């Protein structure tokens, strides 16, 4: 029996159209705009000014707090300006504009293809490298990786879960890196496992990625045979169900444990990291390469096969540049998503630039994405059946529309993971998550002020 999470979930078509498109490297444009807010937490503080010369991999912004991260230049050249620019949602954020000149990297970076399998012994040095290289979680939340790898005192990591579920429809970047960079990912996992005290490590991959499962299994087997420090790592095939890649759901699927409300994965002995994060850890620790690249999928049903791509991009590249390079925005595209269709963000501004966590340009047609007219709730219970947190969205939306904060809290609106299963499932087109999301924010604020 393949494992999966126990409550709710939905089965949308996985639409992995670009799963066989090999990773291609995007050429560097003449100009990049690097945002200082590429991670969860406080935006980083710029440490360069107009006129400065920078190299690839040089720190251009420093963390502005515990939950924050370094940002590095993805190109070499001259800093043109440091100032506000609109991000993909259309909000102003400080960006560092750099005119590209050549491609000169900082010292000490190993750009060769040689695989470094020996894991350094000093855990402190490893954590420092992960932090200095600006590694953040690349599964969506972009939480600084080194913070997650330092369990608070008294908490012990029992299992490191590598998230290769890629449960969002359309996205194939994780699938590609698991096929093309499998060994690097396993080495990254072994490094994190060592830092966490040598706990068991499980790489969870959904059944719809057989090539990735085979590649990762082979990589684990080979590394276990040829190098030290790879014991206790295994690949687990998971049943295809959205949102398997949700942290709480993945812990339930892999370990059979559930994180308490408002709790952290480490409370049940789990640390979850995305496979792309593991690759970034490998590059940071073994190659001294800071996190300035990632892989994104260019896809959509309205794109012909030859225009489907998986690109290795550098941070700061304008989305319009990437779309143009990939063959242009298709005529039928009504909405462009950055991220998956379930939790990704609709792009309001194609002049926005790539960030560490960018994962796609997904073109959806009007027919696919325009919502139907809202009609009366028929109390079918499909939203509650779909909710992977076991919540009752039909009830929460009613309480939310009437501002009933106590009832919202009692019915656990704060546990909502915003996966979108409820809104996806509703036959009456009720904007459940839109309403619940706002209520959740309000309730969490109330809970915080109480403390």
């Amino acid at each position, binding site marked *: 029996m393949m494992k999966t999470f126990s409550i709710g979930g939905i089965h949308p078509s996985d639409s992995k159209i670009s799963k066989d498109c090999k990773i291609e490297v995007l050429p560097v444009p003449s100009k990049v705009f690097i945002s200082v807010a590429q991670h969860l937490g406080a935006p980083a503080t710029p440490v360069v000014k107009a006129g400065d010369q920078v190299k690839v991999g040089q720190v251009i912004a420093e963390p502005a707090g515990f939950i924050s991260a370094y940002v590095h230049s993805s190109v070499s050249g001259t800093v043109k300006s440091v100032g506000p620019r609109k991000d993909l949602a259309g909000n102003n954020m400080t960006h560092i504009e750099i005119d590209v000149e050549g491609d000169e990297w900082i010292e000490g970076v190993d750009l060769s293809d040689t695989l470094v399998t020996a894991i350094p012994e000093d855990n402190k040095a490893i954590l420092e490298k992960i932090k200095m290289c600006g590694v953040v979680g690349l599964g969506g939340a972009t939480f600084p990786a080194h913070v997650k790898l330092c369990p608070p005192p008294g908490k012990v990591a029992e299992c490191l879960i590598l998230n290769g579920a890629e449960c969002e429809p359309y996205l194939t970047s994780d699938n590609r890196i698991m096929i093309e960079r499998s060994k690097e990912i396993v080495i990254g996992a072994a490094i994190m496992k060592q830092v966490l005290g040598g706990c068991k490590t499980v790489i969870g991959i959904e059944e719809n990625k057989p090539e990735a499962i085979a590649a990762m299994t082979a990589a684990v087997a080979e590394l276990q045979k040829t190098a030290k420090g790879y014991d206790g790592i295994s690949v687990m095939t998971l049943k295809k169900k959205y949102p398997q890649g949700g942290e709480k759901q993945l812990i339930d699927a892999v370990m059979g444990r559930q994180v308490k409300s408002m709790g952290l994965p480490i409370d049940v002995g789990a640390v979850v990291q995305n496979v792309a994060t593991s690759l970034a850890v490998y590059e940071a620790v073994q190659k001294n390469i800071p996190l300035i690249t990632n892989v994104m999928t260019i896809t959509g049903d309205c794109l012909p096969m030859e225009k489907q791509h998986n690109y290795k991009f550098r941070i700061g590249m304008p989305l319009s540049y990437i779309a143009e390079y990939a063959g242009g925005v298709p005529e039928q595209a009504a909405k462009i998503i950055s991220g998956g269709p379930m939790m990704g963000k609709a792009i309001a501004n194609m002049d926005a630039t790539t960030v560490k966590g960018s994962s796609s340009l997904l073109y959806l047609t009007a027919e696919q*994405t325009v919502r139907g007219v809202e009609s009366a709730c028929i109390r079918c219970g499909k939203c509650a059946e779909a909710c992977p947190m076991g919540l009752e969205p039909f009830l929460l939306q009613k309480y939310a529309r009437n501002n009933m904060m106590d009832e919202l809290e009692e019915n656990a609106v704060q546990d909502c993971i915003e996966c979108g299963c409820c809104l996806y499932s509703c036959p009456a087109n009720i904007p459940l998550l839109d309403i619940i999301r706002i209520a959740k924010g309000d309730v969490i604020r109330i809970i915080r002020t109480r403390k």
Partner: protein
Amino acid sequence: MERLLVSPSPHLHTKTSTKSLMRDVVIAMIPAVIVSVLFYGWSELLVLGVSVASCVLLEYLITKYLLKRPCTVGDMSAVVTGILLALNLPATTPWWVVFIGAVVAIGVAKMTFGGLGQNLFNPAIVGRVFLLISFPTYMTDWTRPQGFIGGGLDGLSGATPLGLAKEGGVAAIEGLDYMDMLFYNIGGSAGELSAIAILAGFVYLLARRVIRPYITLSILATVAVFSGIFWAINPAEYTDPVFNLLTGGVLLGSVFMATDYVTSPMSNVGGIIFGVGIGIITMLIRYFGAYPEGMSFAILIMNSVVPLINKVCHAKKYGRA
């Protein structure tokens, strides 16, 4: 692409809509409808036609002229009510009685409460029970009209098996062939003719994920267990479980009426409590009540406690054991 659409996630939506769900319920009722028309002929077609047409027309008129709201007949829920009402009436019901049933079902039970999703009671059952109490003669006239097949039964009059059992006890139904009842019943409402036809609809609804099995199965299990216990104690006085499952409205009610989204509990546990309640009340009426059949009353009574059930029964939440 001149302007980009921007909205919060999720950006995809299921193809299932209220209308597609209702259409699936209609499709699930087709086997029962076909059987009833085959055996009861033109008079059953007339009942069905009048019932569906008046339900749809009434909803249209009420939304348009009384409530002055967007018309909701497009969601097909009125069609479902229409067919269900027809299947719950004897095939001999005069057209004007059917029409009154539709007025009560749609006008009173559904639209007065605010339309689809707001009604406390199942509209079709309210319509049927209103007719049963107001026009008992028409509602218990089990004369079998000329059907398109099975003409040999033409003109056969008399009570339903449940009616016989109520009047004459277990002895009165001796010799009934249960295999016959599985395929076509001896008497009763039009939709109750064939257990197999109803079960085919049940399987379709489950396969299409329109309903969950809990309510239906808990009703059937409760009826079987309840009658099983009494029958085991005194088979001379109480009818047996198979008889109770196959006769009357138990199957029709448990598959198509008790599973109505609006008037049944939201959670699975709630559904089971709801089903057990319906089963017990049905059997209490059958064994000890004044009416031979209690399914309609049982569903209505349990409909009224659904809000309470919903208040107590919630889905199991993640991480809150």
